């Protein structure tokens, strides 16, 4: 976190003032450590609570979509449900198979969770609220995210269960396949912003086009397509429906989590939800303008408030998609990644290059620029889609 500018509103500066108040009472050498510790504690508390209430929100929203209330017995509207679940997870017996690799079995959820949590460090939560402002922040985020895949393998291998191992292999294949479209959809953003730093990318999305439309990346042709690809890939990277083959109840028992019970199981789910929150946070930062407000009139809402709203909206979309779409098979999802998303992401990159090169076109040429850009991505989308779904869709049902 950096120092606040004095021109910001009080709400904007309030968290920083509070932090300075606390660290100001400590001697000078301890200030940086205290600052870091406060940041860490706040992040863990905030995302821990978000995780807890996200599980409840998911169950309630899924219930409402399915014409039933979600949990509403524990506390008002089921608000104590996450804590009841926590108690349940803590008090369950922790079974470890005797033939399993004890060290790896123990380390897998630990490694997964720690690597998922460190990705939170580079997301700008507010105007002056980046925990660590790295020059290569985006790369750091995806590097830490890709290192989590090793722990999934560890979980599957250490269980000494051939079904868990097979499922871990499938989960690994899914995660590796979707890394490519994820990273490729981010490259145009870096291209446009000229920096890998996350706060730099949010800074580059300032201003309003034609006075009304904010200059967020999602309102450009390459940003819209890139956001769609990023969104689908982040669904797959966090093992969410419709890509939740690794953890689905009807698939290979529980996949690589089969031999985990009690708190370790809870840690795996915590890591999954943290991954979801981190990827949503990164999506907000890269494509939706980060902490920027969409209208100049609404800037009285502080920047961290806007970030939270956008994050919750994306998480709501995750839950909405879970409520709607059926699960994909492993061959369907790998085919989607390699044959559909990767070519489209590459085409998107080319279109972003065209967009950057044609920045000088003005006046009526702007329309031509938009038309060409949209055509560059829409034509392969339609053609590839038609080609890949030939013989599969639309389904005709013949009744006996």
């Amino acid at each position: 976190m950096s120092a606040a500018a004095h021109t910001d509103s009080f709400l904007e500066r309030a968290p920083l003032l509070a932090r300075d108040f606390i660290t100001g009472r400590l001697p000078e050498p301890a200030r940086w450590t205290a600052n870091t510790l406060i940041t860490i504690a706040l992040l863990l508390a905030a995302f821990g609570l978000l995780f807890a209430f996200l599980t409840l929100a998911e169950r309630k929203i899924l219930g409402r979509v399915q014409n039933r209330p979600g949990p509403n017995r524990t506390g008002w509207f089921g608000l104590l449900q996450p804590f009841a679940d926590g108690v349940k997870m803590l008090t369950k017996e922790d079974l470890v198979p005797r033939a399993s690799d004890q060290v790896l079995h123990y380390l897998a959820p630990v490694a997964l969770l720690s690597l998922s949590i460190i990705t939170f460090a580079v997301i700008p939560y507010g105007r002056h609220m980046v925990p660590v402002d790295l020059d290569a922040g985006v790369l750091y985020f995806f590097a830490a995210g890709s290192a989590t895949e090793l722990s999934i393998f560890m979980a599957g291998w250490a269980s000494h269960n051939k079904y868990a191992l097979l499922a871990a292999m499938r989960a690994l294949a899914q995660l590796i396949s979707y890394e490519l479209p994820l990273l490729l959809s981010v490259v145009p953003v870096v291209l446009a912003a000229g920096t890998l730093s996350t706060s730099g990318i949010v800074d580059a999305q300032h201003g309003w086009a034609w006075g009304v439309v904010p200059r967020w990346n999602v309102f450009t042709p390459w940003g819209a397509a890139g956001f769609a690809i990023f969104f689908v890939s982040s669904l797959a990277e966090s093992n969410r429906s419709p890509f939740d083959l690794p953890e689905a109840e009807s698939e290979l028992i529980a996949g690589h989590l089969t031999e985990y019970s009690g708190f370790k199981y809870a840690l795996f789910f915590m890591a999954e939800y943290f991954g979801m929150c981190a990827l949503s946070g990164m999506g907000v930062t890269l494509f939706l303008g980060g902490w920027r407000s969409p209208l100049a009139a609404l800037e009285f809402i502080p920047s961290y408030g806007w970030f939270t709203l956008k994050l919750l909206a994306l998480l709501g979309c995750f839950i909405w998609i879970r409520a709607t779409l059926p699960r994909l098979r492993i061959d369907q999802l790998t085919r989607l990644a390699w044959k559909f998303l990767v070519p489209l992401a590459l085409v998107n990159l080319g279109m972003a290059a065209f967009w950057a090169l044609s920045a000088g076109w003005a006046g009526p040429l702007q329309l031509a620029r938009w038309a060409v850009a949209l055509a560059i991505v829409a034509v392969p989308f339609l053609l590839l889609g038609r080609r890949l779904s030939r013989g599969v869709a639309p389904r005709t049902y013949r009744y006996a």
Partner: protein
Amino acid sequence: MNAVLAVIALVTVASAAVALSRRNLLHSILILAGSWAGVAVFYFWAGSQFLAFAQVLVYLGAISMAALFAVLLTRHSRDDVAGASSHQRAVYAILTGIAVAAVLLAAVARTPLTVRPSAPPPLSVRELGYTLMGSHAAALLVVGVLLTVALIGAVVLAAGDPPDPKEGEP
């Protein structure tokens, strides 16, 4: 400064040594991943963030996976993963190790490494990008072609034989 470097070096070399001594191949690979992480921390300490994160992304995220898949797909049973050891092998290993260490130490000792207290050059990602695309563009393109050829080769190998048109049709 030197203490930090010593710790990083110790972790890296020690995990590599432990990885080599393990009998279980998968344990070796996972401990070696720790060594690669140590190298990444070294790059970070030396001031190159980009290289550190690229090291994590490539080695811990991809190469470890490749090594694990290679071991799992080529071993028939769990017991096959551990290798057989023998006394003779240990002797030869130690001799070879001593020879390689001697060569490396001689090379390092002969090179004049004067340490000047100067600020590290600014190595932002932007500079890196300009250098790669500017003076080293040819190398970058060659590496790109190499990777593409490797990818195509992998796909061809993995695709297997085309299905026999005679079977499967009623």
